[in-house]
């Protein structure tokens, strides 16, 4: 059976030729559907690097291809633009994986002279693994496509003479390194395969397999040339020519670059390693192994069984390796990016609170702020203790850059539109955009934010520069052009309600530049516009987070001035604590209060006293977590918050 299958390539019978095609169509369909419906390519967008920056034009192209791996990176960035649209992105990624699988299958056939019907679909499906881990490793995929494509061309067109072939291999390795980076050096494995005496179909041409052994020895020269070029390429092209450091030269275009987010890196490495490993397996003649096992029935059944199990295992791999935590977090960020705050809260409520990245915390807080329930519900959600408020709310001067977790820092930075500008902190918004630019290079959200900031600040000429630059990014042209036309019609943008609203609340004073901080900024904002309810809420929220009860009490008039009539629950709880602990009775005149809040606090007080007597502080913490998880008094006592029940 195996032998029949193996001879399929030499048998031109139509039914047999249709099998690989069917497998390819099936794997392409499977990948497309899984990526589209389960992975959801649009979720790559809010993650930094998920959709790499790309611009039409010669400047971006020439800057990209100047560095090793740049051409593959450019192609990957271009293909990645489709990720914004779920279906198109899924099709594009699946098509690239399919192309890689087909080329790998062709290499397999060339090396082993066996049909390897399963190779192309297996590579296609397994190639999804980095993507189901939410890592965009299209540069590595493009590099492998280039490597296998060049290998196939070499097999077809390389000269028979050993010397020129060696030179060609060396040149191809150098060229591939420059174009596609270090991953493309997988080409060397293919060269070895082609030269290792596996066949008459190799570059040596028909009949060479039957040639004396000295011919095989001669083939060591092209192999040596390819290996030497692979060893030299990072040094010669990367370090010497492109002036990279050695670590940079060894990681250019590779998924193990230190600049990559952690997500999926291991899978990508596995993918890259699996490719040459597959070649090595082919060299070892693994497919023929079953044929050598003997004539027993088990030997006849085992290969078919193994193939069936392998197909199931391969198909199931993406499902089991799917990083659903990352998907849920990215769903929250994506909803926040679209300003769908209810959806943010809905999706976040389904996540395990322990797994909340800082970006999700900030997005949830922004959703609560937008829904007007921040001071009622914020402690029903995780609020990591000790985190600066500008990080928790994604607003304020660039402190977020110094957040400890790089992943959180990345996610929080560019995931959702800036709250700073919305609040009226134009300078902070401008500063954070430039910091993002300096840290991550140009990004679409950066250009968009800088355009908006300059519009708000009454600098339409500067905004136009950013907008024209933005218009060169795929998918951004229509919006950028629309704003440019708007500027042309009304340079002052007095007729644009959004701009008018932000301008009316812009921070105008700066008492002391030494006192740059979240609280100072919010105080300045409510001084300009007492009706800036978001700033007033954030001012009180900051006092709650820092457990400064006197400031909570002192800030209540701000809430009143911002139009609030009902005392928010957490403020009420803070005042109850203040009264109970410090004996300071609050003046609640004029506020609508919820009697249930006071009654619940009294219940907690008596229950916690009993718990303290029975089991000490640990018992109180347990009680608070179990029965009062969303209360401010739990946060006040234990700096723990959420989840809401």
């Amino acid at each position, binding site marked *: 059976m195996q032998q029949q299958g193996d001879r399929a390539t030499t048998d031109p019978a139509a039914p047999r030729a249709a099998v690989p095609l069917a497998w390819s169509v099936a794997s392409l369909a499977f990948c497309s559907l899984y990526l589209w419906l389960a992975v959801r390519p649009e979720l790559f967008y809010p993650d930094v690097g998920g959709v790499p920056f790309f611009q039409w034009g010669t400047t971006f192209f020439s800057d990209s291809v100047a560095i090793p791996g740049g051409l593959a990176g450019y192609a990957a960035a271009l293909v990645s633009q489709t990720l914004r649209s779920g279906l198109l992105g899924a099709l594009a990624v699946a098509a690239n994986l399919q192309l890689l699988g087909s080329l790998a299958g062709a290499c397999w056939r060339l090396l082993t002279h066996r049909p390897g019907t399963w190779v192309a679909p297996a590579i296609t499906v397994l190639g999804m693994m980095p993507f189901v881990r939410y890592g965009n490793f299209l540069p590595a995929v493009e590099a492998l496509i280039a490597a296998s494509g060049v290998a196939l061309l070499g097999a077809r067109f390389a000269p028979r003479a050993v010397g020129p072939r060696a030179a060609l291999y060396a040149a191809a390795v150098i060229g591939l390194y420059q174009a596609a980076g270090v991953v493309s050096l997988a080409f060397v494995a293919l060269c070895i395969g082609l030269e290792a005496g596996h066949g008459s179909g190799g570059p040596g041409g028909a009949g060479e397999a039957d040639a004396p052994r000295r011919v095989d020895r001669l083939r060591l020269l092209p192999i040596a040339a390819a290996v030497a070029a692979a060893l030299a390429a990072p040094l010669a092209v990367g370090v010497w020519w492109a002036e990279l*450091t050695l670590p940079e030269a060894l990681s250019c275009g590779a998924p193990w670059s230190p600049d990559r987010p952690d997500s999926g890196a291991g899978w990508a490495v596995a993918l890259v390693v699996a490719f040459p490993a597959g070649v090595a397996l082919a060299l070892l003649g693994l497919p023929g192994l079953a044929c050598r096992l003997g004539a027993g029935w088990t030997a006849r059944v085992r290969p078919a069984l193994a193939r069936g199990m392998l197909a199931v295992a391969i198909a199931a791999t993406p499902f089991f390796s799917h990083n659903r935590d990352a998907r849920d977090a990215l769903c929250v960020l994506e909803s926040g990016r679209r300003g769908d705050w209810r959806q943010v809260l809905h999706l976040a409520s389904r996540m395990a609170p322990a797994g909340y990245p800082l970006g999700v915390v900030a997005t949830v807080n922004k959703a609560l702020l937008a829904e007007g329930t921040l001071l009622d519900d914020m402690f029903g959600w995780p609020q990591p203790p000790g985190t600066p408020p500008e990080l928790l709310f994604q607003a304020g001067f660039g402190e977020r850059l110094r957040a400890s977790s790089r992943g959180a820092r990345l996610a929080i930075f560019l995931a959702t539109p800036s709250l700073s500008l919305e609040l009226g902190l134009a300078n902070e918004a401008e500063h954070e955009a*430039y910091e993002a630019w*300096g840290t991550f*290079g140009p990004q679409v959200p950066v250009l968009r934010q800088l355009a908006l900031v300059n519009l708000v600040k009454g600098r339409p000429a500067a905004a136009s520069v950013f907008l024209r630059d933005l218009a060169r990014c795929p998918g951004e042209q229509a919006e950028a052009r629309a704003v440019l036309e708007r500027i042309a019609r009304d340079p002052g943008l007095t007729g644009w309600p959004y701009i008018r609203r932000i301008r009316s609340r812009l921070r105008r004073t*700066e008492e002391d*530049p030494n006192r740059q901080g979240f609280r100072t*900024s919010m105080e300045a904002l409510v001084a300009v516009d007492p009706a800036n309810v978001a700033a007033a809420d954030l001012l009180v929220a900051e006092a709650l987070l820092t457990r400064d009860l006197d400031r909570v009490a002192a800030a209540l008039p701000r809430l009143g001035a911002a139009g609030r009539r009902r005392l928010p629950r957490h403020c009420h709880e803070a005042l109850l604590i203040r009264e109970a602990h410090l004996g300071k009775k609050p003046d609640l005149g004029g506020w609508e209060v919820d009697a249930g809040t006071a009654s619940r606090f009294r219940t907690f007080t008596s229950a916690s006293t009993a718990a303290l007597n029975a089991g000490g502080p640990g018992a109180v913490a347990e009680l608070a977590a179990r029965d009062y998880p969303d209360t401010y008094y739990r946060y006040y006592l234990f700096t723990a918050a959420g989840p809401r029940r």
Partner: protein
Amino acid sequence: MIFATFKPGTAPVEAVAAAVLGLLICGCGGWTPGAEVGAAGRPPALSPDYRSVTIPPNIAPLNVRVVEAGTAFHVTLEGEGGGALVVASGDGNVRFPVAPWRELLGRNRGKRLTLRVVTRGADGRATAYSPVRIEVAREEIDPVLVYRFIVPHFNVWNDIRICQRDLTGFTVEPVLRGLQFGNGCTNCHAFSAGSPRSMSIGTRGGRLPGLSSASLVLRDGELRRVKSPWGYTAWHPDGRHAAYSLNRVRQFFHGAGQQVPDVLDLDSEIVVCDVETGQVFTSPAIANPDRLETYPGWSPDGRTLYFSSAPILWTDRHRMIPDRYSEVRYDLCRVAVDLKTRRFGKVETVLSAADAGGSVLIGRVSPDGRWLVSCVCDYGCFPIYRPSSDLHLIDLSTGARRKLEEWSSPESDSYHSWSSNGRWCAFSSKRDTGVFTRTYFGYFGPDGRGAKPFVLPQEDPEFYDSCTRTFTVPELLREPIPVGSRAFGRAARSSAGASLSLPATTLGPGSAATEGASGSSRSGLQ
């Protein structure tokens, strides 16, 4: 007028044709206005605005975009001294071919060019705009511009570049890129009297481990790395000595107002380095512990050192932002220096902050020694971040001073560099957008009058419309830098290098202020 079909990239053929015909022609197969042409009654809007500017006879073509509605554009550039270029365009972008352009300018040194624009509207009607005058000076500008290419403001840097541009064409070459040494920062390039034979560039390490701030010093073809970072640097005309500042720089950010970043020196002083011996010396005249001295600049004869100096208004030199930072105003001072004996004369105030009505910075003397141009801004030491900054002119022979209104704008006009013949200045200006610094060139007549400046021409007329990086620290050179980018990159990556023994001053070795003292500002210079 004769028209010929013109294909892009066939400039040599055109030049030959022009020579044969005795008339410079750049035609196209596009639209030609007929007899019926209406008059707009005003000049056309152009981008960049090259209307009524004065240009050097060796400048690159002023490629321009006609910002008028139309479906076809017919542009004629005629020289008073003969010759004409004719360009037709479908989108308003007008690119003059280089060779005929040079020929046209060569014929019209000291004469006037007239730019005529005719557009065809959507209704097919032709409209002629009032002619635009462009004056061609007799005197050439130094043909090389070195500048820094960076994002408008930064705290964290990415891909900083120092580039050199051939001003007679459009060729740009990198001198040093931050990416060449682990995405490091590069700044403070300085040259000796418009020559790259003695020059320096400051570097700050990026991701490369163990790479500290340094200066790359090129002298007579030999490139060396000096482990001491130099701040604002002025090379002596002898090419052997360099005066540079040591600055304790503080960058901070305003929460309100148009300008976000700001820079101040908590402390600063000037030292002089003899690069031949590696010795560094100074004097209380330029390193007064009670004052901030910065922005050194030599007189053309090398006997006088100009610098800016301000009293230190705070006692706590380690406070993040001193209380009275916005009251710091620098005087422009000078001191006689004898480099042989290393003696300094008595400090003289050339222009006090009180008289200037602001902080006087970056005094640079014209090559003939008669004129001095400086920046004057409301406070501080960083005029690029001060929209109030304007260029002021002092006649050193009479002491007369005036604001260079001809070059001024409501936005920041700052860092300037003289051409070696003293007839041109390159300077930084944010006049177009208030955000993006561009390099402008202004003609400076023998009578001390300036002409309307023009922005550095680009091959693509729409270049500046979407260029989100800035051109800063413009320096004019008589010849290109003789050492390639690769050599600078190697030197920047190297951890080797000579150490300089700094004198024991406030910012010298062993002082409490040494930590964090940096010759190079972390922020973007002018």
